[in-house]
């Protein structure tokens, strides 16, 4: 067992510089503050245990990204826990004009729809459309083939559109228009 946790400061510096980004990704993946904190902690435990090797690689960020997405999927499998935020069955009708309130509704709609996706579908949405990664990069982060990312993205967007028809215009705007 490799446990290279003696370079505390190196790890702390690395995490400090990336904590905001990791927190945002974790929150998008889980939709819940406690679960997001657990996810970040679980990923950091693994990073800490291999820190000497991680820091020696050319791209430690890619490694950490891979850890956090794997942790997200495996943590969900382990726990079989319902998301804390219970989505409602039907989203509100789409209001006519965009304004602050409509943005709030759309944000809630997206959160609810994300909560109904599988962990891997949610992960591809975050990787592709929040982190702006290519299919190849997303595939590397998830440890799957590029074709799998493509099909998962297709299914995820289709499901998002079905769950939240009010967001269809956002999905149709995507360059891919996969669905």
């Amino acid at each position, binding site marked *: *067992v490799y*446990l290279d*946790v003696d370079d505390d400061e190196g790890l*702390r510096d690395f*995490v*400090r510089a990336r*904590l905001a980004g*990791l*927190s*945002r*990704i*974790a*929150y*998008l993946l889980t939709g*819940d*503050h*406690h679960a*997001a*904190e*657990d996810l*970040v*902690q679980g990923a*950091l*435990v693994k*990073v*800490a245990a291999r820190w000497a090797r991680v820091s020696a690689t050319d791209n430690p960020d890619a490694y950490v990204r891979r850890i956090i997405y794997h942790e997200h999927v495996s943590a969900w499998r382990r*726990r079989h*826990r319902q998301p*804390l*935020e*219970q989505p*409602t*069955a*039907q*989203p*509100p*009708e789409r*209001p*006519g*004009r965009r*304004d*602050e*309130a*409509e943005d*709030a*509704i759309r*944000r*809630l709609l*997206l*959160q*609810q729809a*994300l909560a109904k996706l599988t962990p891997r579908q949610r992960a591809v*949405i*975050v990787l592709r*459309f*929040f982190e702006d990664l290519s299919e190849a990069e997303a595939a590397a982060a998830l440890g799957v083939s590029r074709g799998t990312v493509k099909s998962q993205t297709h299914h995820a967007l289709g499901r998002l559109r079905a769950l939240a028809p009010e*967001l269809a215009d*956002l999905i149709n*705007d*995507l360059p891919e228009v996969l669905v």
Partner: protein
Amino acid sequence: MNRLKDLLDDVAEQAKLYDPTDRALAVARRRRRVARVTPVALAAAVAIALAAVWLPLHRSAADGDAAATVSWLPDRITVPKKAPPLLPIDHGVAPGSVVYQTGDKAVLVTEDSRQYQLPREWTGYVRGVSPDGRWLAIETGEKVLLRDLSGTGQIEVAGGGAGVAKHGSWSPDGHWFALWTAKVASNTAESDADPRITTVDLYSRQQQVAPISGSVTLTGVLNSGDVALADRISPDQVTTSTPIRLSILDRQTRQVRDRYQIDPTPWLSTKERQARQPAGLPSVEALLADGRTLLIRPFVRLPVNRDSVGYVPDDALAINLDTGKLTRRYYLPDPRIAVSTRDMVADHNRTLKSMLPEGLLYVHNGRTSPPGGPIALELLDLSTGRLQVVSTASSAVADIVGLRGGTG
């Protein structure tokens, strides 16, 4: 860049900064020690590790910070194709959840998702459902009717006749209903005439009437049956240093006890304190969160146009009734869209309909056709500050007129 990313960014903005680095290092070190110790020590370490896993999983329930849900509300309020049956007069129904209006009909939705059409003469007069779902409050011209949904009975609460202002409130446990009535003075400098509080014990159905000062108004009824009153202040006289004055009307003696004078200044932002047009602080709207915490919603003055200002509900302030001190300010969502006065109609507005143990329940209006109708019910979880949609309404629902815990 695309709009989905923009929206994902918005969601991600809600993330906090989770910094478990120390805990992660500690866990990693513990695992290292575990790998080196004897099997007995390993067993102990496994127990610790199990606890470390178990505790985070159960933390939410333990510290009460779980996302709130409203189990008695339907996920979606829909109008059935076939008109629902009339509320039965020979037997009870399940506890009530919500009353909506469609066309000229008022329809009660019960906890078991059944719907009942209410008598036509009640349309437009339903004021709310008790916190336990048992009672329906209907304001008629001269009185308030409390209809027992668990059976067929009803309680008539004298409302002082026509032309008398009325305002009701439920105790959080559904044991008490209090009704303030008065002949309202024509101008704010005068006191109301014949002001009184009628307290109804919903268990025994007994009523008590207590005369009160004409300068106070009902803010809530406690689980003990005592009533919280607040001094009314003319909006013109309000400044940022105007105190909130509260008193408690003792149910048994019918006398006022425990007077509090609360200085809200420390709870105002610097901007609010320095504003040329200061925030108004009359405790006009008040809500009870539990037996000892009173949530009051002051109004803020916002300019309507060059010549006038309007008053809109602001954030909620929590007052501990044991100490008479302000303990917290709850920042309510999108206060600007709470605007609903005639002069300040927004395309969207959010109306606070009831205060529940789970949080504050809002009706979010904003449908375009028919204009202004409800699109969702939203719950603000006071423990986390998160707002979430807990129910939605179909386009045939013209208005949400009654909700559990609300009185209107």
